[in-house]
C-alpha cells in the first residue's frame, strides 16, 4: 500500500504505535520476570511448566515436613533407647547384688539389706518405664508394644512411606514372669531365691538388649532416611528452580534490547505524529 499525504489517518504513526504497544507489553513482562526472579509468575506464563512446578512445590513442601518427621522420630527413639540404657545398667547392678546374695557367707540381716536395695532398684526400673515420655506420650509402658510407632517419612500414604517400630514394655512386670515375682518384685531374701534371680536378671538383660537393638536399628534407618529425603528435596528444589526461575543474564539482555526499541519507537512516533503538519507548508 502506497502511503499518501493523508491528514485523516496517519498510517505510519498507527504502525509505530502498534509496535510500541507490543514492546511495552514485553517490557512489562521483563520487569516482572526480573523483579521476581521467576520466569513463571502465573499459570498463563507457561501452563505446562506451571503445572509441573506446582506438583514439585507440593512434593518439596511435603518432603521437608517428612524430614522434620524423621528427625522427630529420631529424637523419640533416642529418648526411648536412653531410658533403656539406664534400665540395663540398673539390671547389671541388680545382677551384682544377686550374685553377692547367692554366696553362702551372707547372714539373714545381710540378705535383708541386699534385698532392700534390690527391690528399690526394681522400683526405679518401673519408674523409668512409666515416666519416660516424649511429647506427653509414654514410651516404655507398652503403649507402642503392639501397634508400634508409625513414622510418616514420605509424601503419600502407602506402606513404603511409613516406618513402623514397636517399643516393648520394660517394667518389672513385663521383664519377669509373674510367677517369679512376689509382691510385684523379684526378691533375694534367701540364697535359693538369689540363685534363681541371677539367671532371671541375665535373661532380662538379654531381652532388653534385643529391644535396644530393634530401636537402634530403626534409628539408624531413620538417619539414612533423613539424608536421602534431604537429597531428594534438594534435587527437586533445583529442578523446580530450573523450570520457574528467570535466566537473569538472558532476561536482562532482552530487557535492554526492548528498552532501546521503546526509546526509538517513542522518538519515531513523535516524528510520525508531525508528518501531517508538514503538508501545511504547501499552503504558505
Amino acid at each position, binding site marked *: 500500500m502506497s502511503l499518501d499525504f493523508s491528514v485523516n*489517518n496517519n*498510517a505510519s504513526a498507527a504502525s509505530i504505535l*502498534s509496535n510500541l504497544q507490543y514492546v511495552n507489553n514485553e517490557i512489562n513482562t521483563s520487569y516482572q520476570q526480573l523483579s521476581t526472579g521467576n520466569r513463571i509468575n502465573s*499459570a*498463563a506464563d507457561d501452563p505446562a511448566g506451571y503445572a509441573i512446578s506446582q506438583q514439585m512445590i507440593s512434593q518439596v513442601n511435603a518432603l521437608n515436613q517428612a524430614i522434620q518427621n524423621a528427625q522427630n522420630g529420631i529424637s523419640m527413639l533416642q529418648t526411648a533407647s536412653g531410658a533403656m540404657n539406664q534400665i540395663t545398667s540398673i539390671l547389671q547392678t541388680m545382677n551384682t547384688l544377686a550374685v553377692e546374695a547367692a554366696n553362702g557367707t551372707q547372714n539373714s540381716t545381710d540378705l535383708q539389706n541386699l534385698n532392700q536395695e534390690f527391690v528399690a532398684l526394681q522400683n526405679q526400673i518401673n519408674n523409668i518405664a512409666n515416666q519416660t515420655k516424649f*511429647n506427653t506420650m509414654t514410651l516404655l509402658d507398652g503403649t507402642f508394644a503392639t501397634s508400634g510407632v508409625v513414622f510418616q517419612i514420605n509424601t503419600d500414604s502407602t506402606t513404603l512411606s511409613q516406618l513402623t517400630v514397636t517399643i516393648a514394655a520394660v517394667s518389672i512386670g513385663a521383664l519377669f514372669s509373674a510367677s517369679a515375682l512376689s509382691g510385684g518384685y523379684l526378691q533375694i531374701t534367701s540364697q535359693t531365691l538369689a540363685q534363681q534371680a541371677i539367671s532371671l536378671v541375665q535373661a532380662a538383660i538379654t531381652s532388653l538388649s534385643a529391644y535396644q537393638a530393634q530401636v537402634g536399628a530403626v534409628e539408624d534407618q531413620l538417619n539414612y532416611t533423613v539424608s536421602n529425603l534431604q537429597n531428594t528435596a534438594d534435587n527437586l528444589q533445583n529442578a523446580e528452580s530450573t523450570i520457574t526461575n528467570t535466566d537473569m543474564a538472558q532476561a536482562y539482555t532482552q530487557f535492554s534490547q526492548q528498552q532501546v526499541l521503546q526509546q526509538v519507537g517513542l522518538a519515531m512516533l513523535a516524528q510520525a505524529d508531525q508528518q501531517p503538519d508538514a503538508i501545511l507548508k504547501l499552503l504558505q
Partner: protein
Amino acid sequence: MRITPWMEQQQFLYNLENINTSMQNVQEQLSTGKVLNLPQDDPVAVSQDMDLAHEISEMGANLSTVSSGLSWMNATETALQGMLSQLQQIQSDLVAALNTPNQSAGGLAGYAATIRQLIQGVYQIADQKLGDRYLFGGQAWNVAPSSYIEGSATMPSGADQNVAYQIAPGVSIDVTVTAYSIFESTPTGAVNLQTTLSNIVNHLESGDVTSLQGDLNDLNLNLTNVIDANADLGARIQRMTAAQNQMQQYQTNLTNLKGGIEGADMAQVMTQFSTDQVIYEAALQMGAQILLPSLVNYLPA
C-alpha cells in the same frame, strides 16, 4: 464563424464557473481531508469504505469483550494460586500429623485447629468477587459458592456451567473456573475435595489416624486436580492474549486500509488548488482586460 462579444462573455462565464466548481471540489477535499465526502464522489469506494467502517467497529466490540474476559481470567488465576498455596500448607500439616511422635492429644488438636483455619481460608477464596459477581460461581454468578459447596444450600442451576465469552462470530472461550469443578468433581481413586477437607478435620478431631492416611491420598489427588484446573485456565489466558494481539494488529491494518481509501492525498490536492487558483486569477484578469472594450468604447462622446 462570427464571434460576437455576447458569445465571448458566455464562454468566459462558462469557463469561470468550471474553475469555480473545480476549486469548490478541491476546497471541500482540503477542508475535510477526505476524497469521499458524498456517495456520488465514488460509489464503489464509498461502499468499500462503509464495509471497512463496519468491520472496524465490530473488531472494537470484540476487543472489548476480550479485554473484559482477560481481566476476569487473571483475577481467577490469582485466586486459584492463593487457594493452591493454602491446600499445599494443609498437605504439609497433614504429613506432620501422620507422624506418631507428633500425635499427642495436644498435637492433634493443634493440627486440627490449624487445618480448620486453612480450610476457612480456602472457602473464603472460593467466595471471592469481581465487581458484584462471584469469580467461581460459573453461570450462577450471584450465589456465594461456599453456600452450596461447604453449606447445605441446594446448588443453583448453572453453577456447574462455565461462562463463555464470544470473542469473534462463532468463537467462544470459557473464562471461568467453577467452584463446582474444584470442590465437587471426583478424581479417580479419591473422594471430592469438599469431602476430603471435612474428613481431614473430623479425623484429626477424633484422632482417627488410620483414616487420615486415606485422607492424605485423597488430598494429593485433589491437589493435582486443582493444579490442572489452574494450568488449563492459564492456557486459555494465553489463547485469549494471542487473540487480543492478533485482533489489535488486524484493527490497525483495517484502519490504515480505510484511511488509504477515503483519505485525500493532500500534496496532490494542494498542487491542484494552486493550479486552479492561477487559472482562476488569469481568467478574472482576462475578463477584466479583454471583455471590457466594446463598440461603445469607440463611439464619439
